[in-house]
């Protein structure tokens, strides 16, 4: 392997670590959930990281300083935005009501530059096919649509039906591919010994299990590994 190739490999490795750390520091949001500032920083980081990888004559430190500076600015901006509503509006924008009291606000739609086709598509993605069902719809800062259906069109809730539903809690993944997920056990206030006891009753061992979920009321789903040798 030539020295140039080694240089490219080493640089790519370094950039991978730094960019991953940088994105990790920025938070956990998905692309679609990003605020405008986060999107800008993510796009810039990807561009800057590519330069020293493509052109090996560029010093890697220039790219690193630029990436660190962007992450620094993003963190500071997110802290400021959190404290100051006016700045939040400037940096992130604000949610816009595109349907008010069951009526489409055409002016608002023109302002946010979405067409009726876009609106109908976003509603369909939420499982709503009748415009008439909607009381209010907000186009959020991250571009997603939040909808409140008219009370007489919304699905009935157990409370409205006066039904008594017991909360069984969230099913947590306690074993994944033969490995115990300790954080899930902690969430359920259980220990590994408790888990072994449950499995003993089922006549199974941890290593045999592909997936096991458990909720607070003790209900579990167990899927055994295929081709278990």
């Amino acid at each position, binding site marked *: 392997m030539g020295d140039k190739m080694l240089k490219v490999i080493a640089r790519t490795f370094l950039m991978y670590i730094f960019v991953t750390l940088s994105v990790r*520091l920025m938070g956990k949001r998905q692309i679609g959930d990003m605020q405008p500032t986060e999107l800008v920083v993510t796009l810039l980081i990807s561009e800057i990281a590519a330069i020293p990888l493509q052109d*090996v*004559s*560029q*010093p*890697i*430190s*220039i790219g*690193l*300083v630029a990436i*660190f*500076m962007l*992450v*620094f600015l993003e*963190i*500071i901006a*997110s*802290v400021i935005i959190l404290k100051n509503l006016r700045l939040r509006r400037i940096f992130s924008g604000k949610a816009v009501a595109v349907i008010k009291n069951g009526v489409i606000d055409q002016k608002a739609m023109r302002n946010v530059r979405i067409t009726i086709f876009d609106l109908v598509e976003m509603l369909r993605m939420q499982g709503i096919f009748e415009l008439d069902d909607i009381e209010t719809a907000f186009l959020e800062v991250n571009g997603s649509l939040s909808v409140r259906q008219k009370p007489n069109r919304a699905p009935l809730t157990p409370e409205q039906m006066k039904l008594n539903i017991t909360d069984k809690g969230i099913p947590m993944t306690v074993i994944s591919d033969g490995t115990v997920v300790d954080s899930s056990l902690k969430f359920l206030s259980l220990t590994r010994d408790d888990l072994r006891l449950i499995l003993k009753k089922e006549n199974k061992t941890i290593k045999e299990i592909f997936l096991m979920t458990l909720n607070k009321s003790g209900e579990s789903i167990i899927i055994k590994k295929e081709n278990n040798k």
Partner: protein
Amino acid sequence: MKRLIAAGIIAVLIFAVSFTGATVINSAVETAEQKIEQIQKLDEIKSSKKGEDFYYFWEQKRELLAVFVNHEKIDEIGRLSAKMVSAERLEKKSELFEAANEILFIIRGLREDEQFSLYTLL
């Protein structure tokens, strides 16, 4: 709070890299400039071995400079310094001065890149 601490650490890193870069470049550029200016003032070129002196100086500095400076510029100065050594050995004064002038031009460019001005900003 954790994020602010992270921002603080990042700010220190940015400052450290920028400060180290500026110090390394400025010190190398200053010494290189002095050495080249001495070459430009030479009357007797072969016995002085100033070209050779610059060549070894640059060989020593290039690795550290590569962390902060475009490698093509470092290599170009390396190539020109080798040209200076050969001109010195063959007592070709005009070639030696020509290479020295070119090195000085690149070195001054490096210094200019380090300075914060409207030219470097835009």
